[in-house]
């Protein structure tokens, strides 16, 4: 079987494509919208905004989330801000500029038309969120304030203290609650999607587990929107929330959705370093800190002095040294890699020597402690709670950690996957960030997809396709449910000697060591081999106590780990096949003499899209060639 990977990019000049497409798309008459039901899985920025907007338009929405309420989706943890091309600071920003920065930031591995549309609707997002009562930071004159983020030379980031994601998510959530009250959204909490139901080649429903009762439930609809976030937790330790997982997307992959660029992972440069093997997650310190913090390591190996006692000329402010024009605001992939290089050279600091300093001494001297507290007070408090160090007095210690996944289910310009009717939004899709995402762009993309893209394209899909009547009694639903039941009883029946988390940690070590910040052929092969063995051990030695009749947290974990084990292998395979370095994908074999990523545009200007071919055969790698008509491919330089 071969995939149809037509991106369906509208013809015409870049800046007119979206308007033209909106005009040409079919629409559902207002009175007919109530005849359609749409399933939205996930209630983060993408899912929450899509559910609310589709319900406002008149569709019947069934919304599902894994937490106890939709307000807890992991978008809530985004700290620093959201980009938009408003140009309020008058520093020369524009839609074209935001488009260009995003394409370049993604190391020329994203689709031009999608990224341009993202930049176009970015301004509507800010307007919409303000009108919903999001208290963005303001100047004394009452106007909105902006700050800068990595990979940009303008200030285009809107923020609400250090908790922008929270405020935006609560905005989207409140819109949802409004439509729940009106009866247009039926909200199902503590549900985990276990499978996608495909009828006559179209996505028509889902199987979910009610996490409280343990029962499986079936839901049918005319279209399914998957908004289930990224798969960073395949590394076990990441900045993602504990419940964030890849299973919903993975089950769709196994039902025929292409998985694009799984190896494109973002390692965020500023996280609190790992401190013990009991550690359950990593905590991000917002990129916004790099506006005022200076990153450095001692020049001397095995330095034992306290940071304050190390004189200026014995410190290496390496980002400022190597990238004078972007300095501490170099993009995430570049900054992370440089931190790793310093630690590999033996210049790391702290008890594990796997950390670098992020120092606010000079900023406090320049602007005063109060000003710094106003900008980052909550982050400083959080840092102190976790580490017992006070960053006003001593530099933070930071190290890169897995944060975001640019890869995801392949979608066309309409955000539709290779399965008709299955649309994928937000971090769960692969579309806009190429091989590296710029800071403050995830919130922008989630909300763009949910508020301003999917509501139009879903209408087009529904109006263009005849919908046969489908009920949850159909065979496809029964079969899908049986398959989940079978897997569940298998997991419960093994009664082995290791916990699911133990396997997850072991997988995480393979991923971090060989499929992390720096990759090479031998390591990737080792990872593939090791993960395969680990998967076999999992299915013969995992221990899942309890049964399916209640809230069984070990069963939930085990089912997710089973999917992570398969995804991890695909990520390593994708990384092995991509014989170039680009963005977050750094292959040691392909680098410039000064250790920068060396792309191979001749052979790899494409998205790699993987097709599942069964449990016992290898997945097939397809390509969507990326065509650059408006941007000239260049070597990314932040020097």
């Amino acid at each position, binding site marked *: 079987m071969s995939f149809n990977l037509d991106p369906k990019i509208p013809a015409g000049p870049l800046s007119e494509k979206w308007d033209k497409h909106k005009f040409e798309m079919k629409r559902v008459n207002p009175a007919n919208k109530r005849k359609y039901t749409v399933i939205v899985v996930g209630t983060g920025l993408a899912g929450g905004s899509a559910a609310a907007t589709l319900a406002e338009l008149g569709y019947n929405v069934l919304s599902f989330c894994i937490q106890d309420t939709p307000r807890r989706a992991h978008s809530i943890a985004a700290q620093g801000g959201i980009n938009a091309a408003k140009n309020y600071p008058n520093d020369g920003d524009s839609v074209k500029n935001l488009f260009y920065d995003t394409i370049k930031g993604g190391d020329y591995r994203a689709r031009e038309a999608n990224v341009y549309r993202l930049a176009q609707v970015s301004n509507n997002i800010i*307007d*919409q969120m303000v*009108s*919903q009562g999001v208290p963005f930071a303001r100047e004394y*004159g009452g106007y909105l304030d902006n700050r800068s983020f990595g990979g940009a030379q303008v200030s285009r980031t809107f923020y609400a203290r250090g*908790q922008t994601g929270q405020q935006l998510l609560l905005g989207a959530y409140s819109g949802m*609650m409004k439509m729940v009250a009106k009866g247009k959204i039926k909200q199902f909490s503590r549900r985990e999607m276990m499978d996608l139901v495909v009828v006559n080649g179209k996505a028509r429903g889902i199987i979910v587990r009610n996490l409280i009762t343990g029962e499986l439930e079936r839901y049918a609809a005319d279209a399914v929107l998957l908004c289930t976030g990224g798969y960073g937790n395949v590394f076990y330790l990441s900045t993602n*929330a504990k419940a964030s997982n890849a299973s919903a997307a993975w089950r769709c992959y196994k039902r025929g959705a292409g998985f694009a660029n799984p190896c494109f992972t973002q390692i965020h440069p500023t996280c609190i370093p790992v401190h013990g093997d009991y550690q359950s997650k990593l*905590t991000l310190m917002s990129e916004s800190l790099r506006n005022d913090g200076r990153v450095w390591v001692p020049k001397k190996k095995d330095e034992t002095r306290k940071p304050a006692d190390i004189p200026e000329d014995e410190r290496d402010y390496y980002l400022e040294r190597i990238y004078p024009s972007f300095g501490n605001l170099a993009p995430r992939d570049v900054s992370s890699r440089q931190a790793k290089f310093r630690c590999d050279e033996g210049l790391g600091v702290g008890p594990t020597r796997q950390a670098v300093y992020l120092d606010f001494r000079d900023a406090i001297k320049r602007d005063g402690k109060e000003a710094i507290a106003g900008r980052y007070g909550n982050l400083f408090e959080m840092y102190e*709670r976790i580490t017992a160090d006070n960053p006003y007095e001593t530099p933070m210690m930071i190290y890169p950690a897995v944060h975001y996944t640019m890869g995801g289910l392949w979608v066309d310009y309409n955000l539709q996957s290779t399965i008709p009717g299955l649309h994928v939004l937000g971090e769960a899709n692969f579309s806009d960030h190429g091989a590296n995402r710029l800071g403050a762009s995830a919130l922008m993309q989630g909300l763009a997809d949910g508020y301003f893209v999917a509501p139009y394209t879903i209408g087009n899909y529904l109006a263009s396709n005849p919908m046969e009547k489908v009920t949850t009694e159909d065979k496809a639903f029964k079969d899908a449910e049986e398959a989940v039941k079978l897997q569940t009883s298998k997991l419960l029946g093994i009664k082995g000697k290791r916990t699911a988390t133990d396997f997850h940690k072991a997988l995480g070590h393979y991923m971090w060591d060989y499929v992390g910040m720096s990759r090479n052929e031998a390591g990737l092969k080792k990872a593939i081999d090791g993960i395969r063995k680990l998967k076999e051990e999992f299915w013969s030695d995992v221990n899942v106590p309890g049964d399916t009749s209640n809230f069984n947290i070990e069963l939930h974990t085990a089912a997710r780990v089973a999917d992570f084990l398969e995804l991890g292998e695909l990520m390593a395979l994708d990384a092995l096949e991509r014989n170039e370095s680009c963005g977050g994908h750094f292959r040691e074999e392909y680098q410039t003499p000064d250790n920068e990523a060396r792309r191979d545009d001749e052979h790899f200007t494409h998205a790699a899209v993987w097709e599942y071919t069964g449990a016992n055969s290898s997945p097939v790698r397809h390509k969507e060639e990326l065509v650059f008509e408006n941007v000239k491919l260049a070597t990314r330089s932040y020097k």
Partner: protein
Amino acid sequence: MASTQNMTLNLKIWRQKNNSSEGKLVDYRVENVSPDMSFLEMIDVLNNQLVMKGEEPIAFDHDCREGICGMCSMMIDGKAHGGYKNTTTCQVHMRLYKDGDTIVIEPFRASAFPIVKDLAVDRSAIDKVMQAGGYVTANTGNAPDANAILIPKPIADEAMDAAACIGCGACVASCPNGSGMLFMGAKVSQLALLPQGAVESPKRALNMVHTHDTLGFGNCTNHAECEATCPKGISIEHIARMNREYLKAAFTYHEKKRSEGAG
């Protein structure tokens, strides 16, 4: 700052199979607890031991583990989130405890929050209060330019103070009356302060308060336990603002039924 060395702790943890069964405190002992562990990581270690013995682990709610999602809960030694200033349970670290300590861990207890299992409770009543008006009716596509309506910085800042609520329900669990006035007041106050939200403020205050009262939440009698335990430091001034909005609306707000007519 107490320990720098690994500790042994005695835990008394509430175990309850489901909402309809009876629960009880069960004793556990956890060894080798590092002071750098978070409180939830300490429970992870215990759960790992339980699973290896073939027992069911302790069910508890958690997700982001960085103090923002509001999913974690627990009464630790009788206090919501342990009672540390501006701290959620997931941000409590074991360096706050000493070797040999006994810690009592229970679920949030309030009539509006029925127990699901062990330490996990059902807080869907918070969503129901929000559905009664915790939003601005601004459908997607309606919005004027974001800078069209200016908001003085002190007002925006105050609205942000209220908006910081994470909806964890610690205020309800700490209140002797099991009142949800702090989280509800925070939302009413945030939206009343902002011009975008002020339009619907009277109706919002009336509907949210009425809904709150039907869901098993108690009333506010100014104990201020909620403010003391709120992990986001939300002030009871927001309850006062909600009360003013409510009173104003109770006297002045009447929704007249008018026929819109066909065009």
